[in-house]
């Protein structure tokens, strides 16, 4: 079984898609000659050259809007935000132009772009660099959002995102880039993970832990402790995509376990977990044996201090404590 890092899985996705479709262009700050701020695009400029891998100035509104305009002519830009937190300086482009142009043109135009980059806390960089806007962008019809937790999903979802004919926003994670995991060898065939399909990362019968991104790993860690120390067999549902959302997988799991804890690195108010809560109460109300509980980032801007930041974020201990209140 081949194991590679999350960042290399992404890199492999870009390389394969650059080869597959001559309209694919990698674009962003430091993605080319610098090899990427996190080395996710390492070696691509050297291999594919100036036309396909493009360094941009620090002008998010400018280059993202440029990518959107170019996509209207058939180019397929894959654009990096060095941090998803920097979305705020390009917000008009990301929501008015990328999400709404198709609608406002009565379907005459489509915008096949990919926006990508890390969206996570936990690296002691303060509130401006720690936003997790997957719920924010999923709230705009016209956009698709996914958040891979493993190297395999990172590669597969990225390839699906690049091939999708709608704007797809991929939320990665700086703390996952170095994680290793199994990714099928390219010789085994095209590895594409469709948007909108959740993955049961751990089967269980007593409670559903529903998460996306790095929180999935916290859930898996918590599930082992719950099993060994408390005899609770937790199922871990990795959403992978936020929009489209695999509602069926969520409901099926809750119907099986009758309990749910939603783990979400975004904030509790109007976050992804809030949306999933309403779906569960609407579609599995009669199956619930306990109130739906959540573990989210504690509701304040991200604290800098490394002594406490991990406690503001979801972690295995907080998940276990929450599970024990209802199981």
């Amino acid at each position: 079984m081949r194991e590679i890092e999350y960042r290399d899985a992404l890199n492999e996705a870009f390389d394969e898609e650059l080869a597959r479709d001559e309209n694919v262009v990698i674009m962003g700050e430091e993605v080319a000659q610098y090899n990427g701020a996190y080395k996710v695009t390492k070696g691509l400029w050297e291999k594919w050259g100036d036309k396909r891998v493009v360094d941009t100035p620090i002008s998010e509104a400018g280059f993202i809007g440029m990518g959107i305009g170019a996509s209207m002519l058939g180019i397929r830009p894959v654009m990096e935000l060095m941090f998803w937190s920097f979305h705020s300086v390009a917000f008009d482009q990301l929501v008015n132009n990328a999400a709404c142009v198709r609608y406002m043109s009565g379907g005459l135009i489509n915008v096949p772009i990919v926006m990508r980059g890390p969206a996570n806390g936990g690296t002691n960089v303060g509130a401006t660099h720690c936003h997790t806007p997957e719920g924010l962008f999923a709230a705009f019809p016209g956009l698709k959002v996914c958040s891979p937790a493993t190297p395999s999903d990172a590669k597969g979802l990225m390839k699906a995102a690049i091939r999708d004919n709608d704007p797809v926003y991929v939320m990665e994670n700086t703390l996952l880039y170095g994680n290793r995991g199994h990714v099928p060898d390219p010789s085994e065939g095209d590895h594409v993970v469709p948007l909108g399909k959740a993955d049961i990362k751990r089967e269980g019968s007593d409670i559903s832990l529903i998460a996306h991104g790095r929180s999935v790993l916290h859930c898996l860690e918590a599930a082992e402790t719950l099993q060994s120390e408390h005899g609770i067999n937790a199922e871990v549902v990795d959403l992978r995509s936020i929009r489209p959302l695999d509602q069926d997988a969520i409901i099926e799991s809750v119907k099986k376990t009758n309990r749910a804890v939603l783990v979400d690195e975004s904030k509790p108010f109007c976050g992804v977990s809030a949306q999933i809560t309403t779906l569960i109460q609407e579609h599995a109300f009669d199956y619930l044996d306990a109130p739906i509980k959540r573990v989210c980032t504690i509701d304040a801007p991200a604290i800098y201090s490394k002594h406490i930041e991990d406690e503001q974020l979801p972690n295995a201990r907080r998940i276990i404590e929450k599970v024990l209140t209802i199981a």
Partner: protein
Amino acid sequence: MSQEKHFVMETFNNPSVSPLDFASSSINRTLTAEQKIEYYRQMSRIRRFEQGSLKQYNMGKMGGFLHLYIGQESIAVGCASLMGEHDHMITAYRCHAHALAVGMNMNECMAELFGKTTGCSKGKGGSMHFFAPDKNFWGGHGIVAGQTPLGLGLGYGLKYNGQKGSALCFMGDGAVNQGAFHESLNIAGLFNIPVVYIIENNGYSMGTSQERSSAYKDCLAQRADGYDIDWDLVNGEDFYELRAKVNIAMERAHEQSRPTVLEIQTYRYYGHSVADANHKKYRSPEEIEDYKKNHDPINLWKQRLISEGILTEESAKEIDRTAKQETDAAVVFADESPAPTIEDVTDDVYWESDNNTEASKIGRHFFND
């Protein structure tokens, strides 16, 4: 600033300096009488369409905003007259004229204003959001300067595809103070993008005059100097000058893949939008009357064509009458067209869903109550 540009600015600001006659420039010299009359007809159609839409707005036939182009007609028509297969156009919310100038018909435009399914955007865009990609027209954008990076992207796409073309990106004078425009200028200069930014300077960003909104008061286009981009000033009243100077910019895009910023001096007779009730307070009625009487681009073009002996007052009136009839017919068409249904609301959100692809069948895309 170059000596040549000094001269342009001098002539621009000082009527006593005799202007260059651009009728003899290469792009104008070859025009036929029929073409010149056609440009008159296009300007007349735009004015009649705008007058007709204002009337219908006041009758309550449409909602929202209505940003009228009346007074600026020469610009959209002059620029569209220069477009070839790989030349594209994108503009802001004052977009009806550009739509008509590239060949969209009055019916689909009026129906869009009326919010009907026969509208160019099926009633989903409205006055500020007309589109016709098949005619290289990419909108119609509602946020001030939000379209300027998109115009850059159209130029980027042309260059990427190896097409000898240009992206004409229009904007108002208020848009020059948005960050997105400056980011776009820097990238256009840096990446050699074949984009032509056309500032339609009508003197007012909504109710704020240029001198109250822009730190550099003499000339907005000169900001291009900061980005190593060629620029020029254009008298929008002079149709020949407009065509000649826009053509130079487009050739620069075609031949050198270099951007240009043009500032075209113009004027709007109505408010920023129909909702702008103060437009006779932030400027004097005398100022508006002076433009109508002495600077009207349609009237000046008509007089020019009469002096050239290819148009008469009577034939001009006939053109206007026909344009009025076309507008009236468009109003009837829009009135009689069906409104969207509630089922239509969730169409045109996702390409994959509209095309019923395999991808669209995986996961839930819409979250209605």
